[in-house]
């Protein structure tokens, strides 16, 4: 089934490579929503996320020849979006990743009690309150499915920094969720 989906996209991608406008439109329709949310989680701003989305798609379609099919088209595109979103955030020079060890806690902390109020909306709102570095690592790991090695590459940090950042981010998120429950 996966193969079928890939093949369907392969045909679209081939047409996209030839500059077919309809193929571009269909690829955009297929991926824009997911990609927009990827960008939105990192930039926290709808305006910026739209800029990132726009730039990423233009960039992707212009360089679609460099997509060799080693990964899925979605993964290739997501990487472009993530890079552009991280650039957008760092351009604004938001708070750098906090250096303190306050959140450097063990992974197997007993599950926190979030009450009954654990909803997607609340998690999202609390995630938005995380510092840029934490939020990015957390969303790349938990939502975009990158491993620590990949996050390290994307963010220019070491694998172990990625791990400790994730732990801190999760701890901070838990704290925020409990505060707001």
């Amino acid at each position, binding site marked *: 089934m996966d193969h079928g989906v890939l093949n369907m996209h392969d045909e679209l991608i081939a047409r996209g490579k030839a500059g077919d406008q309809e193929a571009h439109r269909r690829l955009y329709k297929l991926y824009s*929503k997911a990609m927009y949310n990827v960008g939105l989680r990192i930039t926290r701003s709808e305006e910026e996320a*739209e800029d990132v989305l726009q730039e990423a798609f233009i960039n992707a379609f212009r360089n679609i020849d460099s997509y060799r099919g080693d990964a899925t088209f979605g993964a290739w595109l997501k990487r472009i979006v993530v890079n552009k979103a991280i650039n957008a955030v760092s351009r604004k020079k938001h708070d750098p990743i906090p250096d303190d060890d306050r959140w450097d806690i063990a992974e*197997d*902390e007993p*599950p*926190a009690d979030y009450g009954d109020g654990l909803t*997607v909306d609340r998690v999202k709102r609390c995630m938005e309150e995380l510092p840029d570095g934490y939020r990015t690592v957390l969303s790349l790991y938990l939502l975009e499915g990158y491993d620590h090695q990949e996050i390290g590459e994307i963010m220019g940090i070491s694998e172990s920094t990625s791990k400790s950042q994730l732990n801190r981010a*999760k701890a901070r998120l*838990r704290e925020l969720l409990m505060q707001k429950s």
Partner: protein
Amino acid sequence: MKDRLEEFIRENRAAFDDKEPSEKVWSNINASLGLRRTGVWNSLVLWRAAAVIFMVLCGYLLIPKNTENPIAVDSARSEFDDVEAFYIRQISEKVEMIDEFQKSEGLNGFTHDFQQLEAMYMVLKEEIKTSPSQKVKDALVLNLLIRIDLLNQQLHKLEKEYKKDSQDEPKKQSV
């Protein structure tokens, strides 16, 4: 021990992608690519046209090379052959005359020079087969002319010597 938060996020992954970008994003992308697209298309057409022209040109240059060029070579060749035939005829006539004159005489220096010129001519004929250039052609013609000149000199000399004995009229062709 699995964290409930992580589990919750993974279970509700799809719900996190809830926001939609505005319509203007696609129209901006489309507009931006539109300019580019025509460019890419034009250049594609251009490349295709260039490829077709290239192939046609190659075909034109390659096939005629096997038919037309040999014709060109042939025409130059046959032109030269005419010139050669004309001179060779003269040479053989003169050689015949000289032979008649000096049946009794040794051929001496004249024959030696003449034979050398003949040998050189053969070498030049081989040369023109491998690399037909104007230079070689000129050398061949020059060789023929020198031989004719030599023969004329020799004939002239013989004519004087045997004037009284012979009534044969040597041809005084100027070349």
